């Protein structure tokens, strides 16, 4: 088969289907990963000894455990204790757990970088600790954490490919299936590579726009890209 026919007749439709699944995975994961990550960071920074140790343990486990292994646990392991999740749900759950661990590190670093005086000043104005965190600390910390958080979002796009290893046919899976069927490996994987590059490059660009929009003079995270 000539590459052009392969590309237009078979690969493109498959990649389109896969792209939709990949976007679903990523967009379902990101908000929960962010919220859980912020929660863990706050628990670690402001929680009592028990909570803060638990949050630290969470981070050690989910950063240290390979994501693929985590997916195996959720998809193949949980049914043995009576919890059976569809592959797609198991993937999203695994991504959220992992994504939150990394996000929490960026948020915590940003919280720690904010001067003590901010909290003191807020409390001196009569705010409770929770109010101070909500209105003074987090708005500053999250701005500083944007470069790190968006880096994690880009990682998430790429690592969502691991869902294929537990049978979710997203972008990489779609490419692999078509490649194997028609024995056109280079064409399929280079094409799917281009799709990822476009996704990642567009996201990077979008992140820059976001950073500019929420920028406050004198309050920037160091851009790492």
């Amino acid at each position, binding site marked *: 088969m000539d590459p052009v026919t392969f590309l237009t007749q078979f690969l493109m439709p498959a990649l389109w289907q896969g792209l939709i699944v990949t976007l679903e995975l990523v967009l379902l994961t990101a908000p929960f990963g962010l919220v859980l990550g912020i929660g863990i960071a706050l628990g670690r920074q402001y929680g009592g000894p028990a909570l803060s140790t638990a949050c630290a343990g969470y981070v050690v486990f989910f950063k240290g455990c*390979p*994501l693929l*292994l985590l997916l195996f646990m959720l998809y193949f392991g949980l049914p043995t204790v009576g919890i059976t999740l569809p592959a797609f749900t198991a993937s999203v759950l695994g991504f959220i757990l992992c994504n939150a661990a990394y996000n929490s590190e960026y948020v915590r670093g940003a919280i720690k970088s904010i001067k003590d005086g901010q909290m003191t000043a807020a409390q001196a104005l009569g705010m409770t600790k929770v109010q101070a965190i909500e209105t003074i600390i987090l708005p500053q910390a999250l701005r500083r954490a944007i470069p790190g958080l968006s880096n994690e979002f880009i990682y998430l796009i790429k690592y969502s490919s*691991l869902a294929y290893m537990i049978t979710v046919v997203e972008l990489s899976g779609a490419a692999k299936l078509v*490649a194997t069927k028609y024995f056109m*490996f280079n064409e399929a994987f280079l094409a799917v590579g281009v799709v990822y590059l476009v996704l990642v490059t567009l996201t990077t660009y979008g992140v820059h726009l976001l950073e500019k929009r929420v920028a406050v003079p004198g309050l920037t995270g160091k851009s790492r890209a």
Partner: protein
Amino acid sequence: MDIISILIAWGPYLLGGIAVTLGLVLSALAIGFVLGLPIALIQVYGNRMLRAPAAVYVWFFRGLPILVLLFLFYFGIFPVMGLDFPPFVVGAVVLGLRGAAYQSQIFRGAIQSIAEGQMTAALSLGMTRWMAIRTIILPQALRISLPGWSNEYPEILTDSAVCYAIGVMELLTRTSQIVSQTYVTLPVYMACAGIFILLNYAGMQVILRAEEKFAIPGFGIQSG
């Protein structure tokens, strides 16, 4: 069968898996260093003809998922080139090629963070540019890179598990085989996670030692 007796029975097999995993990680780190440093130097000091391909290399290898890179090289590029590498070699090389892209950015940032006066002073003493890079810029840049570099180890360690997808006999592959042999699932997976976390911790200790050893007053090498 309970998990303890499984671990005892399959201990040697798992130990072999640890060796393969560490082999992947160390070769990948080495390949990444050997390629990453010249890429960084090209990006900072090279002319436009060299800088463009270096930038494309970094963009490509940082933009693609490790799974796609492994498939691409294992099923596509290497066979087309007539290279019949065993899965382990493909895994190590691909992790290394991708690591080079990431490491080059660590080194590039470190080189650029060194004040321009260092180069000026070296030139004014009669050093050539290359001599100044070797004796003045790189010794400082490598020290500054250590904290960033120490993030590279845990990342490659966890990514090495993806080599499962091309059948490298590393820790996760062997764990999955034990699971399918013994029908004990969660405990065996948890044990595997424990081993990864231990390897992570042990490696970080080694890196921290290195940072202490190479510490110099005025170089804020705290891991962060």
